[in-house]
């Protein structure tokens, strides 16, 4: 087995035991990244930086020192500002923006000793569920359907990170999740993706999409790895007033103990008409797995579920139109040539710099916030959000964690849904409620479709109870025994 195929925990233990050096690990991964360029998972590779960081880690490890992630090579979604390394958010409008500062989450990872391999592809400004809105072109899913050469999407918006983890192009990656952007790509690439509680990780230095929904989290090969990585990512931060001052437990230790007596809620509204039977069958199997390990299965109701997506498509564009007002061609990023006055400079720079989906959402957001429409749309959506969050509070009177499907289907072909915005939005039908309520959720690979594509299950927890989400996730992972890997078709001949 190549060192690139290590899990985070395996690599950590091998480094501690001095069975491998961070340099060797980094070499294996840098080579894997180079050979996988057809996947378009990375938009910026930083091998020199990686080797420099690996050398520093090896020096620390030799002295018996080092942090929780010492010497472990990671991929970073291109939404995190990285000092001295181009950060594009998948958009042309940021041009060759090189941040003079580091995001808090990535700084936390480097402080723990992690090594940066590069920046991963993503939907433009994290707006998309297929990675097809990226200004760098789509990233591809390492998985293909049995007997097919068609390129599939890796999900989105954290599609490059998902592809990189699934294809062993990093040990683990960061993602961000506003409506499902960690969990949905994780599910369709057969990896683990955890969206923590809103406020668990600092948003400082992450390019903003919808500030009341955005949250960073780990994308990993195993549940244990997600536990390890979240511990280092999470922190309270004076630079983000919404980051919460609550203790960050040792999630890895809390994985132990099993799920005997855990009350697992099955929300009946997630059983949707027209959903593929494979999804429902996997969901039932998941409940049986948890029951067999001692959990108690209870049916619960989340009555406002069907309103979550339309609510999201008011709230998120409204916040985005406001956040993206800063891209004006003046202080950084793309600037249109030949503008005669300042308004024309703004209008042309933004029209040239933003892609079609981002422009569509800016227009939606501007409309719902404009005079005369605010109450009908934005104010109403914020009330709906209260009702959606209340549904969860009431359900948690009867259970400790919820089990749901992660996505309405497996990965689809590139180009399949790009003509119909609402059809694309439906990919997030099972994940978006969690963002609206600020809760933690994890997607865990649980099985393959008849034609060999991965499917995931989602567990949703109470606010700041990532520990229970992870423990239940581990129970699914162990029962599913998902050991499948995609066939390596992308390696340059």
């Amino acid at each position, binding site marked *: 087995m190549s060192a690139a195929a290590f899990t985070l925990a395996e690599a950590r233990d091998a480094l501690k035991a001095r069975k491998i050096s961070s340099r060797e690990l980094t070499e294996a991964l840098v080579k894997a990244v180079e050979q996988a360029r057809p996947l378009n998972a990375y938009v910026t590779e930083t091998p020199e930086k990686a080797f420099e960081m690996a050398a520093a880690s090896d020096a620390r490890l030799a002295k018996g020192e080092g942090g929780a992630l010492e010497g472990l090579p990671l991929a970073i979604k291109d939404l995190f500002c990285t000092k001295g390394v181009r950060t594009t958010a998948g958009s042309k409008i940021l041009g060759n923006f090189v941040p*003079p500062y580091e995001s808090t989450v990535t700084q936390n990872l480097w402080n723990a000793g992690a090594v940066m391999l590069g920046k991963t592809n993503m939907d433009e400004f994290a707006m998309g569920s297929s990675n097809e809105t990226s200004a760098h072109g789509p990233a591809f899913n390492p998985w293909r359907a049995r007997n097919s050469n068609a390129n599939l999407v890796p999900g989105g918006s954290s599609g490059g990170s998902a592809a990189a983890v699934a294809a062993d192009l990093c040990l683990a990656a960061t993602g961000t999740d506003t409506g499902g952007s960690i969990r949905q790509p994780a599910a369709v690439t057969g990896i683990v993706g955890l969206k923590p509680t809103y406020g668990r990780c600092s948003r400082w230095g992450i390019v903003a999409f919808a500030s009341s929904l955005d949250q960073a989290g780990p994308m990993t090969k195993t549940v244990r790895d997600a536990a390890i990585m979240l511990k280092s990512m999470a922190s309270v931060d004076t630079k983000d007033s919404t980051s919460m001052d609550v203790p960050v437990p040792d999630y890895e230790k809390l994985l132990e103990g099993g799920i005997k007596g855990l009350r697992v809620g099955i929300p009946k509204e997630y059983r949707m008409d027209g959903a593929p039977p494979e999804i429902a069958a996997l969901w039932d199997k998941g409940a049986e797995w948890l029951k067999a390990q001692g959990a108690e299965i209870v049916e619960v109701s989340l009555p406002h579920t069907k309103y979550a997506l339309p609510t999201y498509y008011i709230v998120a564009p409204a916040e985005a139109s406001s956040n993206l007002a800063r891209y004006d061609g003046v*202080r*950084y990023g793309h600037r249109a040539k030949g503008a005669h006055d300042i308004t024309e400079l703004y209008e042309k720079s933004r029209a040239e710099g933003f892609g079609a989906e981002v422009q569509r959402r800016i227009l939606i957001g501007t*409309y719902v916030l404009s005079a005369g429409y605010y109450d009908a749309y934005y104010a109403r959506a914020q009330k709906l959000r*209260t009702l959606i969050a209340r549904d969860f509070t009431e359900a948690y009177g009867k259970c400790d964690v919820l089990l749901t499907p992660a996505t309405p289907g497996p990965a689809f072909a590139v180009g399949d849904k790009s003509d119909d915005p*609402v059809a694309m939005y439906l990919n997030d039908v099972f994940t978006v409620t969690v963002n609206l309520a600020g809760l933690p959720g994890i997607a865990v690979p649980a099985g393959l479709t008849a034609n060999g594509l991965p499917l995931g299950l989602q567990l949703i927890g109470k606010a*700041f109870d990532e520990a229970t989400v992870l423990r239940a996730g581990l129970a699914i992972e162990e029962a599913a025994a998902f050991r499948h890997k995609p066939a390596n078709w992308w390696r340059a001949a």
Partner: protein
Amino acid sequence: MSVDKDTVRRIARLARLAVPEEKLEPLAGELTGLFNWVEMLNEVHIEGVPAMTSVVAQKLKWREDKVTEGGAAEALMTNAPEHEATFFVVPKVVE
């Protein structure tokens, strides 16, 4: 609910996005489709429901009113599309 071409032109102006004339009509169609879908929110009774202001129960933190960082004008210029010394250059704003 139907969004017309003039409305798209108006909100594009508010959003400072140059939308070419030939794209106004297709965008109006897309937005109409989206707002028709969103219309289902009108089924829900929302009287007396408070709007969500904070997704997790917390009070916004206070901090001391003091400068923590700043004075980085030169670093900020490194990404400017056009600048002179530590000033951003823009087209003439005041006649």
